[in-house]
């Protein structure tokens, strides 16, 4: 300070001297808020004009080089410096700003007015007691980019407000209040951006011996933002308090007001050089999933199906992150519900807790009120799962399905970059076919469905089930093995299986499907069955009379239906007359096969004899009266065949015998 006084003395002397074109090198000027280095004053010929050049102007760790003030009307009288209609240039911050100032060097008080084009103005009043009050009008936020090292954010907008600095006995106090209007920012990749931002800002800070204690409230009242992958709109407000010390911003407590959530509380430690969130902990109380699900959860965790996911109920959550990596998450669901693809798969209401730790085992307990898979309603069940890092283990869960249950056992799943992998076992406890048929819209039938699938394996886009699914039905059984489900949740969802049916009672089968009446039994093999979205697209199927002795009769209507399925000419022409004479006919054997490829069924019948006219026997007659049914169409469009079958089943029209 002694040096400063000396320099000012020289300045004072020079001012009174009224010398011609005098240049003074004044060295360094210090203030608790700023430092000026290399201050040089050049006075004009008559002492009217002056140019102040500053080599370095610093506030905190931020500094600017080559600052100049050109004053056409400069006065230094009675220790008061005055500059009117001057021009200030701070490279990178102010270019050619109009400046008016007066500064009393005795008590370091004064006033500075800066005006920039576009009604941008700064007024700074320095009081003798050390207080500084800065009023901003239309202040361009872009200038803060230089000030706060945030140039890559391309900040925009105007600030209106007041900054008040007051020295205290042991430090200082700052209060900032104001509004941001028309604000925005964008990073080069567009993944963090905002437009039309309006903020109400109220901040206060007190500097002590070691740092700043601060608190404040910022309310977002206008505009929109995209913070990848979330789109956000005005409404939230945050209240926070903490400390700033040695380039570390500590948020001791923050409270966020957000639509759809009762409370969000957080604390964090943020490194400012470089800007990095070192630790973050937050809790969310009573989030309304119908609000936060589509806005925040789906875009963040399931962006590919955002428009297919539906949420209901509430969730509370707490999480901690260290260096950006989650270390603990706790979720508590309250009557929560989730559904995918218009309720194709849904679960809920779901209540319970799901704790997770990055480096410890935890146990999740959920009570699921029910669910739905396609047309099947699922009952209530309890799920207990052990969570361990990226892994989930479930010892046993029984999901009620109609009067039975799907039981999953020893399920061990782990997630990596490609998706879920794992293994386990599945059992289907008996489900009555009467209820299942009714649920999925099949004709009424009796029997039960069970499954024992000891080898369940999960890989990305794939679930395979070693074992057998068995349906006892129509006095026989139907068994599906080598079950594989691919891409279960996408458009390419498809299922493979080999199906064998043995000793199905044709009387019950044909009655169930209103197909006429046939007595006897059949075996069927459907190998390489592929269902795409539950519709068969490929198989090698063969149906043939079961071996053994049993009555074999076929009704007139069933014959007609079979012939209708086979298309014109399915019944040998010579026998058509016979068809009208009897209600039922004896038969020796029934056999039909279909190899489905590319929408076409290549058909064949009983394989030991070619029927007249290159036909194939579907029903070979036997007993009295006997009648053969012969197929002639060997390539039948599958969709057309299904249409015919549905028409036959639906039709109660009397038979027309030709």
């Amino acid at each position: 300070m002694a040096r400063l006084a000396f320099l000012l003395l020289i300045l004072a002397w020079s001012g009174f001297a009224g010398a011609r074109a005098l240049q003074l090198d004044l060295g360094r000027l210090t203030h608790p808020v700023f430092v000026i280095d290399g201050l040089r004053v050049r006075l004009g010929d008559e002492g009217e004009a002056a140019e102040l050049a500053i080599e370095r102007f610093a506030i905190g760790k931020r500094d600017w080089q080559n600052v100049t003030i050109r004053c056409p009307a400069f006065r230094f009288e009675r220790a008061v410096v005055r500059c009117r209609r001057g021009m200030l240039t701070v490279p990178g911050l102010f270019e050619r700003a109009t400046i008016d100032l007066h500064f009393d060097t005795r008590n370091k008080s004064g006033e500075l007015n800066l005006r920039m084009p576009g009604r941008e103005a700064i007024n700074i009043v320095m009081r003798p007691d050390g207080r500084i009050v800065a009023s901003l009008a239309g202040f361009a936020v872009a200038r803060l980019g230089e000030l706060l090292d945030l140039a890559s954010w391309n900040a925009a907008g105007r600030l209106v407000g007041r900054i008040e600095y007051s020295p205290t006995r042991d430090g200082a106090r700052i209060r900032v209040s104001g509004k941001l209007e028309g604000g925005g920012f964008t990073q080069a990749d567009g993944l963090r951006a905002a437009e039309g931002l309006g903020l109400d800002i109220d901040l206060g800070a007190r500097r002590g011996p070691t740092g700043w204690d601060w608190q404040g409230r910022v309310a977002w009242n206008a505009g929109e933002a995209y913070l990848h992958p979330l789109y956000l709109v005005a409404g939230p407000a945050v209240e926070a308090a903490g400390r700033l010390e040695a380039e570390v911003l500590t948020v001791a407590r923050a409270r966020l007001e957000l639509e759809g959530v009762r409370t969000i509380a957080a604390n964090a430690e943020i490194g400012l050089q470089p800007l990095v969130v070192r630790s973050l902990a937050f809790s969310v109380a009573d989030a309304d999933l119908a609000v936060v699900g589509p806005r925040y959860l789906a875009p963040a965790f399931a962006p590919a199906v955002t428009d297919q996911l539906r949420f209901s109920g509430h969730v509370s959550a707490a999480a901690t992150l260290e260096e950006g990596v989650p270390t603990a998450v706790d979720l508590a669901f309250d009557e929560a519900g989730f559904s995918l693809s218009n309720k194709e798969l849904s679960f809920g209401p779901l209540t319970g807790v799901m704790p997770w730790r990055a480096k410890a085992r935890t146990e999740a307990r959920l009570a699921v009120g029910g669910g739905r898979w396609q047309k099947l309603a699922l009952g209530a069940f309890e799920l207990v799962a052990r969570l361990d890092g990226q892994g989930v283990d479930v010892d046993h869960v029984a999901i009620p399905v109609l009067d039975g249950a799907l039981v999953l056992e020893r399920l061990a799943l782990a997630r990596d970059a490609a998706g879920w992998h794992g293994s386990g076992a599945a059992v289907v406890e008996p489900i009555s076919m009467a209820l299942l048929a009714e649920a999925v819209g099949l004709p009424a039938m009796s029997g039960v469905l069970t499954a024992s699938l000891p080898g369940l394996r999960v890989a990305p886009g794939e679930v395979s089930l070693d074992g057998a699914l068995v349906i006892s039905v129509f006095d026989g059984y139907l068994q599906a093995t080598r079950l594989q489900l691919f891409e279960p949740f996408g458009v390419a969802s498809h299922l493979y299986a080999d199906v064998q049916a043995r000793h199905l009672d044709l009387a019950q089968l044909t009655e169930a499907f209103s197909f006429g009446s046939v007595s006897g039994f059949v075996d069927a093999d459907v190998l390489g069955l592929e269902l795409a979205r539950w519709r068969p697209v490929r198989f090698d199927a063969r149906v043939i009379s079961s071996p053994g002795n049993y009555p074999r009769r076929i009704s007139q209507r069933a014959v007609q239906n079979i012939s209708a399925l086979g298309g014109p000419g399915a019944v040998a022409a010579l026998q058509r007359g016979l068809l009208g004479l009897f209600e039922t006919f004896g038969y020796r054997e029934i056999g039909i096969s279909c190899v489905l490829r590319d929408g076409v069924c290549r058909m064949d019948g009983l394989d030991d004899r070619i029927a007249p006219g290159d036909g194939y026997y579907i029903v070979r007659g036997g007993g009295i009266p006997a009648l053969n049914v012969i197929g002639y169409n060997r390539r039948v469009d599958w969709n057309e065949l299904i249409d015919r079958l549905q028409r036959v089943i639906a039709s109660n029209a009397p038979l027309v015998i030709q």
Partner: protein
Amino acid sequence: MNAMTNAMTNAMTNAMTKFRGWIAVLLLGFAGLVLAQGNIEIDTPAIAALKQSMQQRHAKLAPLYASGAVGLAADGNVALRDASGVPLAQRGQANALVAAENADRAALYREIARANGHPEWEADVRATFARRWIDRAQPGWWIQRDGNWVRK
């Protein structure tokens, strides 16, 4: 959302004519190409469903390719590389499109490997497709080469 849909629909009125041909050529142009031992052109109902789904989505993705918002990545995926040209309210939808496209692409690569009877070929199928998507990209689209985005 409606505005975006309309904008995209309008944009696609012109763009579809141009790009429909492209996607057809791209998807069908693999005819005759083979992996080391397999057929990358193999067709199954699941593959057909995936191609149809991708083709439908292409109507929405094409303007994003053309504007450079979305680029063709070197790993066989698409990526939101510069969203700054997309209105803020539609960036989430653009990201959802990218995620859905990548889910279909992953399923397509798996399914082609499976249909060849060699699920373990998935990475090879993906690498082959990645090269082809980039080779057949329209001039002006952004592609990833040696880790950098370049305009074709």
